[in-house]
């Protein structure tokens, strides 16, 4: 039970790097690009100084709350995730310094997973050998699709060959765990072309695949978040692209994954994620298990087991505060206790293949939703543990129908 839960020391840390070579019109991440990312007016230097300060401030706070590093109540981090943006754009020595700073202040357990997100373009993937030397153990490559014209439609700078080259470079650099990110339900891409792209991705022989249906947020953000406004050009692009998506085709693609990926040796472990044994993302698993994860960088989100907290997505505001030696502005969501917390835990856990313990969910008051999921073919008994239920294939495609009955 979450009731009366206490904040827990972080087991992972998310570090947001907001820079990109160029903006992708479908992306909602907190990103700056162009002159702000490169050249004489680059914000990179100011950002790097500020992020080091934030690591220090957050660590000091953790020291106070949970005890100093190395004490029984404050274990070193199990995961570090550098996400973006395009973290592979960080100069190698600064990347190394950042990881060192994290190791110094938060600790990194032996065998910790250190993920770096990378873009496949030759001028974007960075110095992979240097990254591995700096401590990166896992590379997540933003391939999106291995189809030349589909990549062009998406406004990506790279080609399918760049993806192949990046995977080869990563392997030879000694990256121990390699993941490729893919999208489904792409505008104007026929099913056969998409399936061929998937086969090319499988042929790369990576350890982990993420496949998300492309979700285009249209119109004003309705959640009232502190998010950056979508540029006008991107809005127009999204409207065109959304019209060229096809729910039926998207559904077929997601269904195709279910037969194709296991045959290729990837186990389904989360709604959108497949991995060969031992290569599931440990960092993302912390989120799905509702574990404590710290976060630094503009727009980054943290959770301490009780409260969700986030930094302002505004780079200026974030940087200005840190220059003054203060924590950046942001927001937080009051203690997630009671039913809301349990519901959130249930929704997150149901994303995973291991599912949830049926009796516990019923006991917590979600019997109706579970029964609805079962009778509509969204939930089924876990294949190896009769006390648990998990999403069916249909359930994975329609998960929100179920989650909206729980959340």
């Amino acid at each position: 039970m979450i009731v009366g839960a206490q904040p827990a020391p972080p087991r992972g840390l998310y570090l947001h790097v907001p820079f990109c070579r160029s903006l992708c019109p479908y992306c909602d991440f907190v990103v700056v690009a162009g002159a702000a990312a490169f050249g004489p007016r680059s914000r990179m230097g100011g950002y790097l100084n500020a992020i080091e300060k934030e690591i220090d401030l957050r660590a000091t706070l953790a020291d106070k709350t949970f005890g100093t590093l190395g004490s029984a109540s404050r274990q070193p981090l199990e995961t570090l995730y550098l996400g973006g943006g395009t973290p592979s754009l960080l100069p190698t020595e600064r990347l190394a310094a950042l990881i060192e700073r994290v190791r110094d202040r938060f600790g990194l357990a032996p065998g910790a997973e250190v993920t770096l997100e990378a873009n496949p373009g030759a001028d974007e993937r960075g110095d992979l050998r240097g990254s591995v030397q700096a401590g990166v153990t896992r590379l997540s490559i933003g391939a999106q699709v291995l189809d030349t014209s589909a990549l062009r439609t998406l406004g990506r700078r790279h080609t399918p060959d760049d993806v192949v080259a990046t995977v080869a470079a990563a392997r030879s650099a000694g990256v121990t765990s390699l993941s490729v990110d893919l999208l489904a339900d792409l505008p104007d891409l026929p099913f056969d072309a998409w399936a061929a792209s998937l086969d090319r991705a499988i042929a790369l022989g990576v350890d982990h695949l993420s496949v998300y249906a492309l979700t285009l947020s249209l119109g004003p953000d309705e959640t009232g978040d502190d998010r950056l406004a979508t540029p006008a050009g991107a809005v127009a692009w999204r409207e065109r692209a959304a019209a060229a998506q096809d729910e039926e085709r998207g559904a077929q693609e997601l269904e195709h994954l279910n037969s194709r990926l296991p045959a290729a040796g990837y186990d389904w472990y989360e709604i959108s994620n497949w991995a060969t044994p031992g290569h599931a993302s440990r960092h993302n698993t912390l989120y799905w298990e509702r574990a404590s994860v710290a976060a630094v960088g503009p727009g980054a989100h943290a959770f301490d087991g009780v409260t969700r907290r986030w930094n302002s997505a505004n780079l200026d505001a974030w940087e200005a505060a840190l220059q003054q030696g203060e924590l950046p502005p942001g927001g937080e969501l009051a203690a997630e206790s009671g039913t809301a917390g349990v519901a959130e835990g249930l929704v997150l856990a149901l994303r995973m293949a291991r599912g949830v313990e049926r009796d516990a969910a019923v006991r917590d008051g979600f019997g109706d939703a579970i029964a609805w999921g079962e009778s509509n073919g969204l939930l089924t008994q876990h294949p190896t543990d009769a006390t648990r239920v998990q999403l069916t294939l249909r359930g994975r495609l329609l998960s929100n129908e179920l989650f909206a009955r729980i959340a």
Partner: protein
Amino acid sequence: MSTIPQSRLRNFSIIAHIDHGKSTLADRLLEATNTVEARLMTSQVLDSMDLEREKGITIKARAVRLDYVAKDGLTYGLNLIDTPGHVDFAYEVSRSLQACDGAILVVDASQGIEAQTLANVHLAMKLGLVIIPVLNKIDLPAAEPEMVMSELEESLAIPREEVILASAKSGIGISEILEALVARIPAPNGALDAPLRALVFDSHYDTYKGVVNYIRVQEGRLKTGDPILMMGSGAACVPVELGYFRPQHVPVQELVAGEVGYIATGLKSVRDARVGDTVTSQTSPAAEPLPGYQVALPLVFAGLYPLSGEDYPALREALEKLHLNDASFTFEAESSAALGFGFRCGFLGLLHMEIVQERLEREFNLQLIASAPSCKYQVMLNGGKGELLINNPAQLPSPNHIDEIREPWVSASVVTPATYIGTIMELSTDKRGIFDGMEYLDEKRVVMRFQIPLAELIVDYFDQLKSRTQGYASLDYVESEYRVAPLVKLDILVNGEPVDALSTIIHRDRAQGSGRNLASKLKELIPRQMFEVPIQAAIGGTIIARETVKAVRKNVLAKCYGGDITRKKKLLEKQKEGKERMKRVGSVEIPQEAFLAVLRTDAD
């Protein structure tokens, strides 16, 4: 306020079409007589309801007393009784006119006379009121005063030398109008020493003062503290307060024959002090009441339902409260499988329905859904079982019990530029209307008369009329008679379950088209479900149209950006809220918006 002798009182009203400048003229009269201080002057002073200001219409009659120093140096008490202009509120107009001795007829100098205005002027003339014709907006470039004056001459026999040229906006002609009120309208002539007789021409409910009656004293005097008797209801009371309107209440000690004012009765129920009743004195009552008013009967009926079922008691309370201020609508409890518990309400017309719904939503903070408007049908049962009056399609017995169904018809008149004669003819006959004749008002404009079924009129006739004539045509109608018609009940079935709120009584020839249209609209509006959902239109057991909502195939959230569970949760909560607002029809979840959208659109 000094007492003004009866000989210097003038009671008048303003008759005008929407947008012809009635409210602006009223504002100018108020200013010119210093009735409202300049710093308190807002536009449309008399239209105090937000809804009235937004829609630019007057809904409730109001009165205001203007003290005017005329050119003869004497002070006159001018009582302006403001009236609604829309056809739905014709009954309010007739009541207000009965309290007057004259009326200013405002006609837009570029638009000319409209259907509504014609009807109201005829009414005023029948009541023997002096008409003061005013051509407004004469300073606009499009003004055609000569043409409009000949229109007045030809259609209403108003001599052009009586017409005052004015522009309420720029203050032209205001002093002439004030002088004409004094010179042309006769002073009221009720005997001051006769027993008290005062006509209630409107009322509203005040939490502190109880029912407040707006009255015109015809004969006698009423003093503060005098016990009074309502001759119709028999209710007796000692008024809490008497007074004038300015336009806010100004208490006085006495109201005498000829005056217009209010009585705060302290009575708790509007039923005890109805509009049209006669107020007299308990101590020396009058022998006969004044001729009252014909009670306005609802023509249009619809179910009003709260969006969320728990608001049902709140809706009942709101209807009861609103009814205290507007006794012209009716309501009784009903329930619908699709919409839950609600009320069957009767309205004077579509605008009245819209206004009641909006007032309930705004003034009582309710969210409502209205079922398709219907009228009152006479159903002759077979086997000598007599006649049934129904105002709800759900009440219609099955066809094998019915001999015939009769529907109400209205006599409609449309005033329009002659260029639209063909268009209006087409629209009206398309709506089963029967052409009754046409007269030219002048060389450019005509009055067309039709007999038309009310059911057709309340669907979208007015909207169509406006849009097909670029807003130039105007409409007036009165109930005429019931006629037999081949009417059937059209049901809409979702996943095999009838949606009672969407059932309509419709002409047999229209059923197919309407059924197809409703089914295809619903198809667009019903979100995909977990399974395939057939939508059917049926008459009795016969399916006449069918559509299918395909099953939902995928509903997954996008990638979680940097651990941003919060956003994901918000998006899920939005979906959840959406689900909670759904109504269940069998196992199908239908959003309220779908009903609203279907109910709001025309059936063509």
